[in-house]
């Protein structure tokens, strides 16, 4: 019973924590541009994050080492430091986008000035991260993030043609500009296969001292949690396809997905959507900041861990504090968080091969994994995804430039 409850809680937390600002932006824009045509990409992305999260969790449980710890061992100091620098830049940009997203959500609820809310957002994140244990942070942001299930209700209430929706799960020749189509393929995959999630997940598994007996729970939580979380991505696309596409609306603001919910469900739906966005993006901000701190500490061999008192792992603590503050400073420059999101997702796609290759190598290494090394299925999927990741990494920046950030 206790294990069932633990799994259920983990799944709920995964659903509520699935969506971040990158998913909000790219799924809404994809739906508003191509309708249901890109549904299949979300499926590919979710299966990919399940495959790699399961591998990361298994590596952490068996080798007792988190992913970034192994990057340096596998690719060497110089390449590892290059990976670290790239990861930290992407983490910082993503954190900045999330902090900006929190401030906008707070502004949509309160009407207070945006710049003050950036400060409030960062102070709130610092206080919560400092005072609450991780399990409570996950619960708070994960459970309140479940307000985003209002997206699913709203999507159903737009009464889409379910036949057309189903058709969207089959890859087909794009109806519009092909370059823009592939830009969104890259963006949606990038929004789903976020490196910070993988780093955070594996570090958390080591902190929680996972062992072989936790592997099944790891698999179940990852599969069910991410799959249900993907419903939110589909819902964003359906709402955008039904409400924005017919009117030629190009979603450029964080309030636009909330407007879509309002159009269907009215005031209550609007408030639930904004609150859901606030907590989903807030949880993501904490994950990104800690992921950055984990990477730094693990690369340089510092003592690390949220479970440690800050004075016992001070460089780790200072790292996540510094990331929050730098993120706030970036957003204070006035640069649009939605634009920052677009850049951070595309740049994270470029860095993806450096993230996933060490995971794949270590998950196959008998020295670290013993009899728990990858099964044939894991390897087939892992290698297939790695090839896909290489392809999208190579094409991400050219597509962004050629399509003017998806505008055509």
């Amino acid at each position, binding site marked *: 019973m206790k294990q069932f409850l633990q799994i259920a809680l983990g799944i709920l937390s995964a659903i509520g924590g699935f969506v971040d600002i990158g998913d909000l932006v790219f799924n809404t824009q994809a739906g508003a541009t191509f309708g249901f045509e890109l549904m299949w990409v979300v499926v590919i992305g979710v299966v990919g994050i399940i495959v790699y999260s399961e591998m990361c969790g298994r590596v952490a449980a068996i080798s007792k080492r988190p992913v970034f710890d192994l990057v340096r061992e596998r690719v060497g100091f110089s390449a590892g*430091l290059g990976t670290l620098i790239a990861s930290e830049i992407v983490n910082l940009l993503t954190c900045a986008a999330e902090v900006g997203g929190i401030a906008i959500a707070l502004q949509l609820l309160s009407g207070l000035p945006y710049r003050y809310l950036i400060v409030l957002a960062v102070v709130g994140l610092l206080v919560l991260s400092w005072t609450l244990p991780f399990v409570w942070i996950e619960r708070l942001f994960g459970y309140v993030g479940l307000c985003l299930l209002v997206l699913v209700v709203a999507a159903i209430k737009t009464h889409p043609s379910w036949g057309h929706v189903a058709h969207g799960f089959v890859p087909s020749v794009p109806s519009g500009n092909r370059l823009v189509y592939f830009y969104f393929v890259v963006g949606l995959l990038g929004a789903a296969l976020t490196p910070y999630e993988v780093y955070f997940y594996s570090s958390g598994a080591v902190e929680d001292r996972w062992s072989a007996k936790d592997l099944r729970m790891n698999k179940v939580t990852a599969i069910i949690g991410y799959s249900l979380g993907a419903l939110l991505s589909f819902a964003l696309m359906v709402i955008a396809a039904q409400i924005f596409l017919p009117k030629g609306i190009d979603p450029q603001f964080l309030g636009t997905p909330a407007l879509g919910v309002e159009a269907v469900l009215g005031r209550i739906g609007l408030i639930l959507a904004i609150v859901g966005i606030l907590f989903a993006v807030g949880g993501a901000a904490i994950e990104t900041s800690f992921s950055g701190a984990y990477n730094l500490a693990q690369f340089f061999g510092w*003592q690390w861990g949220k479970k440690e008192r800050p*004075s016992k792992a*001070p460089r780790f603590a200072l790292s996540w504090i510094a990331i929050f503050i730098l993120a706030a400073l970036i957003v204070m420059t006035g640069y649009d968080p939605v634009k920052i999101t677009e850049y951070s997702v595309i740049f994270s796609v470029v860095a993806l091969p450096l993230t996933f290759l060490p995971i794949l190598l270590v998950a196959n290494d008998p020295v670290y994994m013993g009899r728990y090394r990858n099964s044939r299925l894991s390897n087939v999927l892992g290698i297939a995804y790695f090839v896909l990741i290489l392809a999208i990494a190579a094409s991400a920046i050219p597509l962004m430039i050629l399509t003017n950030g998806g505008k055509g």
Partner: protein
Amino acid sequence: MNVTATEIDLGLGVLDHQLVDREGRNCGNVDDLELVGLDADEPEVAEILCGGNAWRSRGFFGRLAAALSGNATHVPWSEVAEVSSVVRLKRTEPELRLGRGDDRAAKLIDWIPGS
């Protein structure tokens, strides 16, 4: 693999691995190794170099990082208890003068309640 084995793959089994002290605390990485007796038949590891300018032999980014850092800490190979997925040391971090960065960093946050 433990340190008494006659063959250890220094490249794959030691270099860039985590250093862990007697109390299980992370105290840096094996950033470089000082070898002696290279002219002889059996070269030996004399010291582990950790942090600071130990990175100068580690490629372009290593030289850049070394230029921004102070001196490395030298840990005699005799202080190594075990080489497995990590390199375990016989003594504690302060005894080996490792983790000085944490000592300095701790002063910045010690004053905050709950630290």
